[in-house]
């Protein structure tokens, strides 16, 4: 569906993306990476906002700028969302319908359907400026799915949301994933675990990993140990302390280590797999 071939993007002398090759189909993908890893730049290239210096992006085997269906199929939620503060949610959606060239006769139906999908149908008459952060993110998803979009790009959609709003957001994504390609960038590993079928890990503009959540988790097999803080130094080789917990007055470290240790290894989480990758312990 969406193919990235040898994609590179540079801002002046700084190369932000280096020769990225990916092929994305109808699934939910999580784009994981630290701040400044190049996630937003990659999303903006995929949305057609940035033109790459090298390589190309194909939508259904056609370059983005030549594809007639790309703009109609695209739904995009940028990191910052909240325009037309004085309009009602319905009017803002109507504006997006017009931008997406959705026929006026279909707009009312499309808007109602999209707002219902994200449980905002009773907020249609409220002004944008009165919506909470979580509602605004869900409104962002609603505009992204207007017109039966098949390709949805969500840039850090859960940033700044409280746990309740995050749960509602993840439920909305799970309900929308049928027959759609959804790419969700985040640096919150839990969100990927909850919603995504596949993960792309990006670091300093390079794709470090592309595969299923299970495969990413498996990277940390026999590399995760929980040891008392005093024993932490006895771990051999390269290591990284991921978490420090207190249990019954004793401090424990969750340590990622490259080689086999004298301790019982723990069942890895997605976060363990991700940290092993970015810390060079894979």
């Amino acid at each position, binding site marked *: 569906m969406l193919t990235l071939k040898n994609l590179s993007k540079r801002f002046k002398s700084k190369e932000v993306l280096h020769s990225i090759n990916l092929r994305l189909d109808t699934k939910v993908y999580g784009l994981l990476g630290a701040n400044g890893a190049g996630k937003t730049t990659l999303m903006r290239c995929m949305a057609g*906002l940035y033109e790459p210096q090298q390589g190309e992006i194909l939508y259904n085997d056609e370059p983005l700028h030549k594809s007639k269906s790309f703009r109609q199929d695209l739904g995009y939620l940028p990191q910052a969302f909240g325009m037309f503060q004085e309009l009602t949610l319905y009017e803002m959606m109507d*504006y997006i319908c017009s931008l997406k060239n959705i026929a006026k006769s279909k707009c009312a139906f499309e808007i109602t359907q999209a707002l219902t999908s994200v449980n905002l149908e009773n907020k249609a008459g409220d002004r944008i400026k009165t919506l909470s952060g979580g509602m605004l993110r869900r409104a962002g998803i609603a505009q992204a799915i207007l017109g039966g979009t098949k390709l949805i790009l969500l840039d850090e959609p859960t940033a700044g949301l409280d746990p309740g709003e995050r749960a509602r957001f993840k439920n909305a994504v799970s309900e929308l994933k049928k027959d759609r390609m959804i790419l969700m960038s985040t640096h919150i590993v839990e969100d990927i675990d909850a919603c995504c079928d596949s993960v792309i890990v990006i670091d300093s503009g390079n794709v470090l990993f592309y595969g299923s959540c299970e495969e990413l988790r498996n990277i940390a097999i026999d590399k995760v140990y929980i040891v008392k803080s005093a024993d932490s130094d006895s771990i051999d080789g390269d290591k990284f302390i991921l978490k420090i917990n207190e249990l019954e007055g004793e401090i424990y470290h969750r340590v990622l280590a490259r080689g086999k240790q004298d301790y019982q290894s723990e069942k890895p989480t997605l976060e363990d797999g991700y940290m092993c990758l970015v810390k060079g312990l894979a």
Partner: protein
Amino acid sequence: MRRLYLELKNQQFYYFVPPVVLFIVVPLAVLAAIKNGAGDNFPECAFIAQLFIPSFAAWWPLLTLKEYLNSPGRELLFVYKSGRDSLLLKMIFLWTLYLLHVLIVFIYFAYVFDYVWFLFIAITIQSMFMIALGYFLSLLFHNTFVPLIVNFSYTSIFVLVLLYSPLSIFQIGTSFNAGSLDKSTFVGVIALILFYGGYQLEKHLYKNSI
């Protein structure tokens, strides 16, 4: 047109500033000038019209551009906006809309004075210049506040202080006839150059500045 309507609706009460100026402030100022003056009041009417009308021409365009330049959602607007759907086109629509309002004022002027239509043409071109300047500066500075200040400062300085400066687009103290439109032609050419420059900024620089 649907989008333009919503963009203007988003301006809330700020939308009503140009109509208030055109339909209340300008006619009242002209009436006051007629009442206080003696003889030919047309030069004073031309002065009032040039002080108020061109300066508010860029009001709607700049408030509309604000969403595309300063709002958190500008990135989204640029992703969905097609190549045909340029900001320049919006500027031209808004200029036309403003001129329709100005036309109503001039229909009133036509009942009071003779030969107002050369002044109307001059003001039409001055309004175009102000919109073109606002459009160009907004895209250059990625900001709509600076062009708004430049706009009102330019009008105030060149109408109230530097009346006869060659840098002025206004025609204060001149009689309005076909010959007086020479300056307007020059102003029109400058406005077209500013529109062209703004369009190039929109096409090449603005998109990559997000």
